């Protein structure tokens, strides 16, 4: 009997995922233009840990200022996007939604474009102009969608539809800004829209890590509520879940996670859609395990995609956003055609 609930299988899966992600980290840090292999990287790391500073400055710079921040940013950003997707899918009980469907990405794009094209500073953020704008507009888009849905009865369908509508409006505004932009501004908007990790800095990683950890903690706190919601809203209610509060908290968490990540990286779609599915197929439907598994899958997925994107067409780098979209589109079709039972209710 106990066998059915024994979490050992799920814990094994989590450990295995962690091992895979660690492996990916080593591979990713040793792939790059400069041709430094795994050995150089490991010895650089080891020397750093043991304080034996006998590396050349070049090695240290490449490892600590270029590769490591990028790898770490991929991990944090991937985990953040995946957590956001898990929260939204869980609370809206729809496995085909992700924060980008709900207008967050379009909002972020609008904020960034506003900064890049018109130099409008929504927060007075100076150096972090684009980042702050993207964050404010992304959060604003999602909150607008939620408020619109609240005007009527805020069923899960109205939130999704309101999010799509808000997304269209912001996409239209982005197109308008692109149309009136000067050539060099247009280039930077287009580049932002593709989403990439090339501008990875340690400060970004340090800033995003606590945000992602907080998101993880909140979603774990909501795990049983999300499980109950999976059995239907009425059922959840009769199990003592305050569905309105749970929904708002999960949506806010997802919004701030996505907004924080894409503000730094630009639009990276589909990680939030794909990771929760992969996590569920590994650990089942209990959100106490789906949430951390999804974060690990997201981290690994984005790191793998970015590593491939920067080494596939040597020596040109592809933006990772292009890569995830190329992966995500077919994945979506796969869900639509072969995993019907996940979304036909």
């Amino acid at each position: 009997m106990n066998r059915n609930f024994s979490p050992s299988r799920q814990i094994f899966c989590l450990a295995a995922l962690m091992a895979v992600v660690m492996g990916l980290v080593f591979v990713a840090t040793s792939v790059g233009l400069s041709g430094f292999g795994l050995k150089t990287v490991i010895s650089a790391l080891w020397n750093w840990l043991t304080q034996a500073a006998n590396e050349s400055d070049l090695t240290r710079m490449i490892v600590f200022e270029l590769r490591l921040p990028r790898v770490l940013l991929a991990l944090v950003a991937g985990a953040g996007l995946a957590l956001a997707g898990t929260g939204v899918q869980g609370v809206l009980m729809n496995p085909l939604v992700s924060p980008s469907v709900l207008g967050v990405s379009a909002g972020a794009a609008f904020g960034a474009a506003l900064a890049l094209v018109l130099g409008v500073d929504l927060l007075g953020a100076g150096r972090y102009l684009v980042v702050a704008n993207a964050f404010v507009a992304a959060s604003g888009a999602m909150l607008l969608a939620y408020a619109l849905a609240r005007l009527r009865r805020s069923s899960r369908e109205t939130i999704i539809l309101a999010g799509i509508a808000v997304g269209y409006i912001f996409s239209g505004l982005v197109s308008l800004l692109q149309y009136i932009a000067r050539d060099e501004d247009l280039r930077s908007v287009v580049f932002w829209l593709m989403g990439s990790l090339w501008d990875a800095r340690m400060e970004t990683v340090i800033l995003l890590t606590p945000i992602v950890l907080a998101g993880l903690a909140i979603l774990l706190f909501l795990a049983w509520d999300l499980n109950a919601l999976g059995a239907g809203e009425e059922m959840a209610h009769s199990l003592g879940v305050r569905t309105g509060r749970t929904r708002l908290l999960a949506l806010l968490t997802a919004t701030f996670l996505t907004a924080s990540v894409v503000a730094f990286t630009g639009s990276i779609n589909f990680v939030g859609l794909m990771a929760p599915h992969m996590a569920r197929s590994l650990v089942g439907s209990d959100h106490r395990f789906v949430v951390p598994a999804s974060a690990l899958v997201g981290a690994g997925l984005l790191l793998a995609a970015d590593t491939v994107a920067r080494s596939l067409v040597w020596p040109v780098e592809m933006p990772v956003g292009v890569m995830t979209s190329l992966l995500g589109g077919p994945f979506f079709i796969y869900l639509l055609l072969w995993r019907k039972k996940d979304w036909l209710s």
Partner: protein
Amino acid sequence: MNLTAKDLDFAYNSRPVLERISLMLNPGRLTVLIGPNGSGKSTLLRCLDGVLKPRQGCLFLEDQELSRLTARELARRIGYVPQNASPLTSTTVSEIVLLGRRPHLRFRISDQDRDKVAESLDALGLTGYSGRFFDELSGGEKQKVILARALAQETKILLLDEPTSNLDLRHQLEVLDLLTSLKKTRRLSLAVSLHDLNLAARYADDLVLLHQGRIAVAGPPEQVLTPDSLARVYGVRALVKPSDKGRLHIDVQATLQPEPEVEG
């Protein structure tokens, strides 16, 4: 534990659905709600569970007002099985039954939770099913799993919205027999909505006949199920005769033309 409703009014926006409903659910008794489609049976059950907030009137659990309890406290006292309660994600039987423990646990699953789940599965003869996927089960099995979930919740009051609607004859009897035995062994206060009047007559201790959001008649089956009340509420001509074992048998003969007029 008993649940009392006093003068409940409920409306969806401005459309009144329930008016001046008063009733009491008692331990060890099965109350069956009957009435035509749209008469307010499901809405009443949802009000009793606290899912819907009545516009007027009060609900008492023993002598405590329902609205003063937290969501979790409420979920430990009142269980509710909605109609067609099908989970949206693919889950196993044991995971669904485990959800019934949600009002009792914080994060970890304790041994006690595991035992209660095993016990509930066992009570419904589902022990061998725990690892099966819910969406691969038959309608009767699904209904039993949902019931096991409600049992694992360990509430003293249990509300079920048409628990027999998708079941064949045998499974209908099985589910109602089971509820009857639970009501005795666990002293549950049960409220069940049913469409089949013969089943209602057979299993109910108390019957509540709803008509356009009001209680038309309430009481023991032989008081409620009369040719007169059936004609008035359902618009049918029916014979009601006691069969052997003292049960009532309702024999519907024809519809009355035209449909009954709206009262009041």
